[in-house]
């Protein structure tokens, strides 16, 4: 399939402002999670997205109404981007019955199917074939829907990745494979786990067009995702994006962080995606600082509400243990 040239999508001030809002909301949400985890309100594993905000926000902002989203266990940001209610998300993390997954899923298993968000999946790579199947259903029905499937750099080394990408190529599925390359899979640096120099090389093994993108710049992420989705709808087949980003916090809570240096973290913090979008707004879009402060304040209110809602919500009733095992009972 010939790779067509596409016009550069253009952003508006309103769009960038909204992305800023979402990114701030994600960061504050993650910070709140971290606090609540320390307080023992949240259990299990908790994987924060801090540092990677531009990836979820920029890419999901580009999706069409028939497009689906699915990701791994680092899944809070994607839920926020599809528009899930932060209160119901926090309630899920608190294990409450009012949570998006009725308290059964927790941090790693947020989903909001009404918003075409199929959720987070904790088995590395396990959701990739699910994504292929979800996109197959859209192709089967002849809609223009595609699937944005997110996964980490470390996940590209599991069989699920290989089989799913190959299947998407053979069946020409409307799949947008989005690799969140945050440099590590737990404590293992990319080059210690992948024989290939980078992630896009892997896509060529399936004849899937791939592009490396600065994952710290929300506008770039949005533009490249927009074009990739356009290519899928043009019938150019599955596409692959490698978003270069970084996770500021540990892999999950209680990561000894023996595998990287403070210097490295500082270096990456300098191109903090929030800083990047903030400068863009203030310097290029002529936005006033107050406007941003107002947004920050609004987000603070939303988060305070979310935590209170989670706190005040009821636990699942004992009989919930046996609910939803089978549809037919």
């Amino acid at each position: 399939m010939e790779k067509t040239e596409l016009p550069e999508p253009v952003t508006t001030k309103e769009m960038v402002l909204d992305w800023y809002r979402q990114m701030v909301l994600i960061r504050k949400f993650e910070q709140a999670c971290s606090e609540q985890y320390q307080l023992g309100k949240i259990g299990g594993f908790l994987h924060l997205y801090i540092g990677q905000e531009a990836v979820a926000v920029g890419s999901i902002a580009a999706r069409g109404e028939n497009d689906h989203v699915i990701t791994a266990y680092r899944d809070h940001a994607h839920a926020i981007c599809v528009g899930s209610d932060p209160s119901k998300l926090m309630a899920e993390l608190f294990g409450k019955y009012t949570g998006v997954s009725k308290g059964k899923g927790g941090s790693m298993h947020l989903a909001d199917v009404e918003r075409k968000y199929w959720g987070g999946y904790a088995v590395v790579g396990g959701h990739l074939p699910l994504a292929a199947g979800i996109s197959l259903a859209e192709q089967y029905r002849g809609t223009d829907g595609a699937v944005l499937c997110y996964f980490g750099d470390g996940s590209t080394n599991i069989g699920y990745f290989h089989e799913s990408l190959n299947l998407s190529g053979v069946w020409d599925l409307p799949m947008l494979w989005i690799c969140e390359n945050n440099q590590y899979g737990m404590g293992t640096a990319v080059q210690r786990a992948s024989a290939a120099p980078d992630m896009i090389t892997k896509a060529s093994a399936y004849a899937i067009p791939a592009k490396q993108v600065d994952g710290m710049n929300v506008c770039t992420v949005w533009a490249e995702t927009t074009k990739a989705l356009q290519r899928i709808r043009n019938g150019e087949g599955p596409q692959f994006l490698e978003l270069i980003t970084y996770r500021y916090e540990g892999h999950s809570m209680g990561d000894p962080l023996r595998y990287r240096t403070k210097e490295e973290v500082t270096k990456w913090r300098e191109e903090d995606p929030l800083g990047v979008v903030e400068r863009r707004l203030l310097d290029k879009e002529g936005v006033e600082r107050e406007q941003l402060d107002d947004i920050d304040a609004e987000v603070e209110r939303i988060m305070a509400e979310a935590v209170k809602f989670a706190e005040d919500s009821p636990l699942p009733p004992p009989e919930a243990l046996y609910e939803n095992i089978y549809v037919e009972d």
Partner: protein
Amino acid sequence: MAKRITMRQAITDALREELERDEKVFIMGQEVGVWGGTYAVTRGFYDDFGPKRIKDTPISEMAIGGAAAGAAMNGLRPVAEFMTINFAFVAFDAIVNHAAKVHYMFGGQIRCPVVFRAPGGGGRQLGATHSHTPDIIFAHFPGLRVVSPGTPYDAKGMLKSAIRSDDPIMFIEHHTLYQVRGEVPEEEYLVPLDKNEVKREGTDVSIIAYAEGLRVALEAAEKLAEEGISAEVVDMRVLNPLDMEPAIKSFKKTFKAVIVEEGYSTYGISAEIAAQLQEHAFDYIDAPIKRVGQKRAPLPYSRELEQSALINPDRVIAAVKEIL
């Protein structure tokens, strides 16, 4: 009006009828299309329904299991075929940890009406890796319905029900049964996925079995009858969630039971059945509950050696006589 057809034909008919009934139903798997299915179950389907409905896949079991589940989550009704159940091992995580979990884990938001078809069993000299009857490793997990029919009638009716069910289902076929013939009505019918039943009435002993085990059990019962021993045969075609009622009822009548399965009885399906019988019908237990299954060794290639490890009517009869 009824006709006598093979189990293979019954499965083929069920698939064809459901493909014709519901546009959302499609088949995917290795060699199900151009080849016509390595067990010829889907022969002719590719020409009749085309590549959209009959999808050949690469040799990618993890993706077959996962993609079928994903398509089901998003509104289709996939029937995914594993060429043999042995290869479902490669897709084990996709089946038991994804298809079987999404409905529960997301609080009911997601439904996964996928059917995984897989023929299994030994006796074809395929060696240790290709001859498994591992039904318990699937039945162990709540969230996954596991059924395994033993007659053409049940195979057709249960497969149609499975395709219409909103739950993920492991539909296990025992290939030794493909040639077995039985009565199947011309008109449409369904067999429920939650009911086991008595397949032969008797009074002296309960032989509890399913699939290939059922075939062997019925043959044994026939021979026992000639000796004046009346065996009741209970079909456990529904393995998970397990319907124990007919077995318990029968046991309360005969006070004695022999459980038969093609796979290993050790850590097998029959272990659970025996455990429940002694617990739920304790006051009726008159003799040790016996189990007849595959001998505790990997299956070898050499014909005679392999045959010596498998179940057969004589082993069942011997077990019955031990407790009469």
